[in-house]
């Protein structure tokens, strides 16, 4: 389950934010996350932000993958 997609916080109005995925805008309830500001990325699920995405961890995952050895076609 759980279609949740990383979305960019565009603007905030109280408990609700406008978030963007590829330029399409969605409403997201911020009731479950704190210290969110425009420019942050959150995981959007069923109209709520369920987590802030850790940019540091995201980079680390990608670095790890990039550092993996490339096998030649054997």
């Amino acid at each position, binding site marked *: 389950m759980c279609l949740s997609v990383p979305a960019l916080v565009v603007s905030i109005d109280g408990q609700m934010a406008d978030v963007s995925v590829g330029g399409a805008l969605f409403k997201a309830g911020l009731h479950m996350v704190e210290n969110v500001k425009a420019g942050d990325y959150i995981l959007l699920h069923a109209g709520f932000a369920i987590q802030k995405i850790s940019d540091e961890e995201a980079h680390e995952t990608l670095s790890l*993958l990039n550092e993996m050895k490339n096998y030649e076609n054997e």
Partner: protein
Amino acid sequence: MKYIEEYRDKGLILKLSDHIKKSVTRNYDFMEVCGGHTSAIHRFGIPSLLPPEISLISGPGCPVCVTATDFIDKAIAYSQRENVTIVTFGDLIRVPGSSSSLEKEKTKGADIRIVFSGLEALNIAKSEPDKTVIFLGIGFETTAPGTAVTVRTAREEGLENFLLLSAHKVMPPVMDAIVKDGIKIDGFICPGHVATITGSHIFNFLPEKYKLGCVIAGFEPTDLLQSVLMLVRQINTKSPDVEIQYSRAVTPDGNLIAQNQLSEVFEPCNANWRGFGNISASGLRLRKEYAAFDAEKRIPVIIQKHRGNPSCICGDILRGLKKPDDCSLFRKACTPENPVGACMVSSEGACNSYFKYHS
């Protein structure tokens, strides 16, 4: 689209595929228990990127598939009452009850509306005060906190015409039941978005009690392949553990605010899982402080006990014991247009995915 496309890089995908192929030393059976994973695995053609030694089994991770028939029957019974509006996520609309479905009832004139969020259901209740709006709460720990917020907001705003019919469930008890049942699995691919809320610690029982390893996986192709590689390594080194692959969203403790919202509004209860029967402490029901929003307490309905189609083996499929091909109804009496069992209804149900993506 940031945090999506980078994890779909073909070069990284093929590199991971290569690493997996070079790491296998025996056969491995991994179960995923998340409809989102079932869907992603098929969408990205993951099986075609894995060596034949690795088998991915789809478990009871689709909240639609495991929603018991009597929940649908209750929702239908409510929809037939005057001035009731049923508000639901799209996933549930085609799930077969014992003799009808929400979709069929809609064609007969029932007021059944599809929303994307519980907050939309609240808006409907606010703008139509003379209707009783019943929101069907399905989903696991990822979705339930949102429903909790919705119910809290309904209370804060003094809404009297908003009710919840909950079929929310939690994952660990059913995973425990699967292992106890003796189904042969070498490791679990754990649901990344459930873990975003709960934290990784809810899966600690797997290595502690059963010496089974698990990896909490994201939903992009590199996430899935990296998770498979991590599981293969755990097995090769005989070191079962709970590992987080999806670290950009999952931490050991999870989202405490969401957890608090959840426990403020819901408490555990026994729940009926299609294919598994009753599993104790596997469901979520409204606490008595929120009884005013509980549809079943405010408007009791009586439904008839039903018998399912005896040839339907959704239960075995949900437990990972059988594959869709093993079912005598598959592709014949049971198709996506005319589903008999829930595994065929949801686009992430094992049978629906299999139907669409395999010849």
